[in-house]
């Protein structure tokens, strides 16, 4: 568990920092904040040191806890040589960075934020290196991307910072997704995500079909994180971050995560041709690109950034070679690089703060103003250049000697040694440059602060410690290696290799020669930098950030144009899409179908049916033909509706006929109401192509419907309806089976249906409430003056019709259970009769005479129906169970009482309320009462 503690301690530290920041805001408490921030990393470091003995005994401490076993995700930690080395680097350098930041952020408001984020970042890094479960590792992997996004964008006022942050997030985040894929595949192959299991399954992995894909995806993740070409572009732009961030993330830790991963998985996945070629080539390219570009950078941090890329490429190259010795060299160089690159970045930060510039063309001759800095910097700079006695010398020499050992592919034979030598030459050149150009090289030019501001001496302490460590490694390589790195190398290779022998390295001739060439060449190169820079200036300047932004912008523009082209806001097109989607697959499937004609015999054509069909077709075609003339089209539509009614009547569906008829009239009235605000004609605006397209779609749809209808009608019916016919009277208490289905067997449908009607009405009420039609009313008012608003004769007849219509609706309501009729139709009849009052007497007149508002009527109807349904609970039956009894009272005779009638009353009430609410609110739009006035 305490390994897990290592990971989560910095989170606690971050919380502590947050609290201390809130308790003591402002720039005056930086040292307090730093102190608070230092606690957790320091404890971590001590804990790690306390583990050293157990690690040195070759033990791998594994702790695991199930989290989501379903997907193999566990809270599992592993501390072995490799993770110990990385964890120690992370916490150790982390402490120094915090120390450095205490000065760097002195007097700045943002210090608190930095301390929080840096500890979160530490957690993420520790998580990566200490995870035993690969999926769990991925959690931290993504966390590093995220926190580094926040850290790079730390000074968000700068556009560069924002862009750099986004770029790094997209590239490393994208890599993370690839890595997710790769790890999942790996887990599938192995059957587990535990590193122990993965490492034990080398043969399974390498022989699996999915190995190439798995490896590629994992390497994509590793390369993006470790800034390997061509994904290196984000790293220089991450330099917009404050220098402590750069020093920590972009030299010592985050960029090493990819290397860590490759090293970690090397025993399981390495040792293949693919591994070698992918990693080696990438490493070589990165090595060279980084080194080359670094030479020409004028920005100190830029130079360091590219040099970091170059060194990352170098380590990658070594990992790719895959031999134990190469691994040893890789990890050795990884360590030395961390030790010399971090102080160099710190130096850059000090110079930047002191002089206000990072441009080496302006910064010159600092040695006089900052001699101590110069002295301390000399060590890491020398290490970077690979001067003898320095740690960098050794690691480079290890590289050279390993490069000579590569023989496997014939091309690598001589290419790699030559290649690394040239890269070494470049690295010498830029190392010399950074030192010479900053501290010597004449007088400063146009620096914002000159003489440089005084920086506190404490700021040099972390530099000193690191430089000293770097020196120590260079002086005692064997001890360093044996004590620390060998353990790590053992974890990365399949066999127990002998200790690396540095004395043998010292004797090696050819690597020494190569070192010499690099050194001399590099210095020559530096001396000749003037003309070289001139040539370089001729080269087209490539700004990765711009490229990235351009790619982003172009993708966005592409996305927008594509989306705009598809989602162009044209309903006609969307509907056409829907039709195509409905027609095409069915057409495709049924293209060869021959079973349209079913086994049943065709029935004779009844002339009346033929006539009805004719009128239906004619009127429908008429509507389509005359739809530009809206009112005539509406009249024709009424004819269609009427004949649909007649069809229902003809084919034994009286209930349907009644319903269709009532609905039709209400619908037409509503459409007429709407039409009075709309243009009376539709313009002819469809082109020939459009009409052709629509006709084809319409034709296909019609043919489809006709075919299906024909297919079904010519087949015998086998349905569940016998049950309804048999149980309607004994079980439902009504002879009109359709009505019994509606209020009983499927009363639940009806409940839903009236709810729909009620909601529709309330919705109409809601969205016409603030509808302003005043201008329309004015323009439509041309008719006024002549025609009287409420013809007396109409009024008289309508008033008389109302009670009679109510009587009729009572009749239809009461008989519904046994004969065609029912609550819905009765409700519509009532509504129509009341609508007539509105038309005859006007909205205001009729509204005054209504006994109730309509919304509560709808609500009451729904409540009646629902509560009737709930009533059955009290006798122990489910919702909507009906009860009925035939009673025989003296004098009155037999009659039936059914709860279904009560349910139907709910239906009736809802229908009346909803229909009138819609009408009244439509009518309202025209009245003086006008908008804003609630009607119903």
């Amino acid at each position, binding site marked *: 568990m305490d390994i897990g503690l290592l990971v989560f301690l910095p989170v606690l530290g971050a919380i502590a920092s947050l609290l201390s920041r809130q308790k003591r805001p402002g720039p005056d408490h930086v040292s307090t904040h730093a102190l608070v921030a230092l606690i957790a990393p320091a404890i971590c470091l001590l804990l790690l040191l306390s583990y050293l003995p157990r690690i040195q005994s070759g033990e791998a401490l594994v702790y695991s806890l199930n989290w989501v076993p*379903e997907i193999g995700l566990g809270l599992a930690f592993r501390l072995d040589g490799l993770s110990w080395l990385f964890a120690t680097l992370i916490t150790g350098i982390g402490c120094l960075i915090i120390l450095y930041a205490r000065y760097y952020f002195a007097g700045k408001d943002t210090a608190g934020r930095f301390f929080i984020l840096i500890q979160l970042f530490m957690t993420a890094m520790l998580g990566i290196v200490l995870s035993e479960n690969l999926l769990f590792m991925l959690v931290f992997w993504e966390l590093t991307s995220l926190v580094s996004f926040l850290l790079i964008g730390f000074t968000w006022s700068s556009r560069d910072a924002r862009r750099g942050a986004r770029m790094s997030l997209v590239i490393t985040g994208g890599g993370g997704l690839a890595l997710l894929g790769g790890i999942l595949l790996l887990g599938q192959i192995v059957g587990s995500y535990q590193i122990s299991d993965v490492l034990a399954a080398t043969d399974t992995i390498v022989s699996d079909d999915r190995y190439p894909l798995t490896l590629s995806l994992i390497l994509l993740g590793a390369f993006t994180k470790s800034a390997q070409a061509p994904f290196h572009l984000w790293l220089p732009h991450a330099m917009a971050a404050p220098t402590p961030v750069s020093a920590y993330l972009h030299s010592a830790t985050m960029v090493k995560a990819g290397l860590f991963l490759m090293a970690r998985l090397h025993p399981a996945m390495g040792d293949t041709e693919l591994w070698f070629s992918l990693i080696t080539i990438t490493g070589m390219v990165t090595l060279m690109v980084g080194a080359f570009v670094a030479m020409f950078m004028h920005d100190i941090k830029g130079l360091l950034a590219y040099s970091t890329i170059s060194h990352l490429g170098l380590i990658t190259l070594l990992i790719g070679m895959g031999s134990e010795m190469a691994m040893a060299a890789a990890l050795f160089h990884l360590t030395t690089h961390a030790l010399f690159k971090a102080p160099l970045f710190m130096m850059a930060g000090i110079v930047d703060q002191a002089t206000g510039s990072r441009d080496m063309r302006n910064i010159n001759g600092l040695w006089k103003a900052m001699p101590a800095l110069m002295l301390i910097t000399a060590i890491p700079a020398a290490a970077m250049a690979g001067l003898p006695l320095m740690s960098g010398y050794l690691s480079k020499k290890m590289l050279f000697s390993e490069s000579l050992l590569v023989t496997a592919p014939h091309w690598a034979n001589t290419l790699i040694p030559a290649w690394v030598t040239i890269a070494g030459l470049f690295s010498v050149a830029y190392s010399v440059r950074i030192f010479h150009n900053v501290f010597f090289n004449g007088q400063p030019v146009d620096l914002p602060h000159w003489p440089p501001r005084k920086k506190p001496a404490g700021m040099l302490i972390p530099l000193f410690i690191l430089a000293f460590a770097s020196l120590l490694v260079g002086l005692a390589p064997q001890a360093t290696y044996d004590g620390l790195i060998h353990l790590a190398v053992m974890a990365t290779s399949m066999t127990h290799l002998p200790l690396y022998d540095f004395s043998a390295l010292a004797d090696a001739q050819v690597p020494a020669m190569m070192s010499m060439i690099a050194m001399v060449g590099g210095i020559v190169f530096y001396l000749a930098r003037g003309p070289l820079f001139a040539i370089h200036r001729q080269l087209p300047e490539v700004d990765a950030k711009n490229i990235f932004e351009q790619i982003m912008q172009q993708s966005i523009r*592409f996305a*927008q144009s594509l989306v705009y082209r598809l989602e162009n806001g044209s309903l006609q097109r969307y509907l056409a899409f829907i039709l195509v989607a*409905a027609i095409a697959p069915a057409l495709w*499937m049924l293209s060869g179908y021959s079973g349209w004609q079913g086994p049943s015999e065709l029935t004779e054509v009844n002339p009346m049916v033929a006539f009805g069909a004719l009128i239906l077709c004619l009127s429908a075609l008429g509507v389509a033909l005359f739809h530009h003339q809206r009112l005539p089209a509406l009249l024709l539509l009424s004819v269609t509706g009427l004949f649909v009614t007649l069809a229902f009547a003809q084919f034994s569906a009286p209930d349907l006929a009644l319903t269709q008829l009532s609905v039709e009239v209400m619908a037409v009235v509503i459409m007429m109401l709407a039409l009075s605000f709309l243009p009376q004609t539709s313009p002819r605006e469809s082109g020939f192509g459009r009409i052709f397209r629509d006709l084809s779609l319409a034709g296909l749809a019609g043919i489809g419907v006709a075919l299906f209808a024909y297919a079904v009608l010519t087949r015998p019916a086998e349905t569940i309806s016998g049950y309804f016919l048999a149980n309607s009277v004994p079980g439902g208490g009504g002879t009109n089976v359709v009505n019994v289905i509606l209020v009983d067997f499927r009363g639940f449908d009806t409940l839903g249906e009236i709810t729909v009607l009620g909601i529709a009405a309330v919705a109409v009420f809601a969205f016409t409430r603030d509808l302003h039609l005043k201008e329309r009313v004015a323009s439509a008012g041309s008719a006024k003056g002549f025609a009287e608003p409420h013809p007396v004769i109409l009024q008289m007849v309508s008033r008389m019709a109302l009670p009679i219509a109510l009587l009729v609706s009572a009749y239809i309501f009461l008989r519904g259970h046994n004969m065609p009729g029912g609550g819905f139709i009765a409700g519509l009849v009532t509504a129509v009769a009341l609508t007539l009052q509105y038309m005859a007497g006007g909205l205001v007149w009729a509204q005054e005479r209504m006994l109730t508002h309509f919304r509560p009527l709808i609500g009451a109807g729904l409540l009646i129906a629902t509560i009737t349904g709930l009533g*059955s609970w009290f006798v122990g039956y489910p919702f909507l169970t009906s009860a009925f009894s035939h009673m025989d009272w003296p004098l009155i005779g037999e009659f039936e009482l059914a709860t279904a009638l009560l349910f139907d009353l709910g239906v009736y009430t809802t229908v009346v309320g909803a229909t009138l609410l819609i009408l009244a609110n439509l009518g309202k739009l025209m009245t003086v009462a006008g908008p804003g006035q609630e009607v119903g």
Partner: protein
Amino acid sequence: MNHLMIMPIVIPLLTGAFLLVMYRYNIGRQRSLSIGSTLLLVVLAVWAVLQAGVTDYTLYYLGNWQPPFGIVLVLDRLSAIMLLLTALLSLFCVLYASRGSDREGSHFHALLQFQLMGINGAFLTGDLFNLFVFFEVLLIASYALLLHGGGRARSRAGLHYVIINLAGSALFLLALGILYGLAGTLNMADLAHSIANAPETDLPLLKAASLLLMVVFGIKAALLPLLFWLPRAYSAASAPVAALFAIMTKVGFYAMVRVFLMVFGLDEGAPANDTVLAWLWPTALITLALGGIGVLGAASLRTLTAYMVIVSVGILLATLSRNDEQLLAASLFYLLHSTCMTAVFFLLADLIGRYRDDGYDRFSVISPLSHRWVLGSVFLIASVSIASLPPFSGFVSKAWILQASSRLPDYLWLWAAILISGLLIIAALSRAGSGWFWRPEEHSTARTRAIEKTQQLDHARMATVCVMIAISFALALFAQPVMDYLDAATKLIYQPSGYVDTVLGDYVSQGEEVTE
């Protein structure tokens, strides 16, 4: 018979109806009723989840009629979990809306309750026509809610949304007609039984009907090319409504699972409707791709979120179409995550818009923003979650989906689509976030400070959003029990015979005699 089962439908209905009767209630009373009802729904949904965990299928015979003659409600783990998701989501939406957006129009709470009735009904019903009815209930309520608050954008988007769905309803009825005409029943279990025993010549017609249903559900679920209504509609709707709409696409998905996997899945030789699934697979992938592209090209956070909804639909349907038990379980987990998080983003877009000087959530316009620290942090965390980065539920769900799919053929397409769309989301959200919260030149103005003073941060709204994000986190933290539940849920889906036997009881064994 346990009457609690009908309550998820009846309670919102009663509440909505009561709110209409008491149409003069002031907004405060409306809110308390609505919140009370929704809380009750949460409790009921928890009960449902527990109940379904104990009993595979809980049945409720409406009107005490034996299925297939009467309508039956079926509670299984899948419907239970959908109920819970709906209840939780709606609770947050109601709470959020109760901070003021419910005042923008009339009868918000009544309409919302009806909407819940429709959604819950659709999840519970075991009858295909009843499903149609509940679809209509939830649609008409959604039309009303979409238009809530008025305005030109809503009118336009609403008109398209309504007309398209009306076309969908017509198709639904056509399909129902064909199914009834050939199978003679509409109860899902009975239909499954009939389809499994259908004559050879009828099978293509039945499948064609199911293709129509694919279009119908595809419109609801926003499947390409039926999805174009969605971005405008969702981005035009008021925030809590849009957040609630996050569940609406899932209703389409749910219906597909029920119909194409269960109703068409009884035939031993062909488990699930291969015809539909074959069409679904490529279209879902393209949907996913288009969603990703739309995310990248979106000009405002609402639109971006709308496209994230499409991405989630693409993932859900693509996984559904692979017809695999484990993958379906994974996709259900993703459904929980994506619904929750897209809802969060709709609310967040609104919240941010409230504190922006121009009141909008457009990316291109730079406008002073107050409370940027809090908003920025929440936005960051929410983005991490929705981009499926760890440690939130999205990461777990995607990992599960990718894992489960890797056993199946053609999985690389799905992988590529999911991973690339994830990247696009990261890119788009980082652009949005850095553009909004990292623009000090606009933030530090005196104007911003002035706004900040007058505009108190709405802690209730903020808390709503935060709790929803916390749910996403909790979902990841306690993923295993949830996954166990979902595994069990999908197991039932892939054993339709159990469903059919339970629902139909002895009707099947006695054969068709009962009908006489």
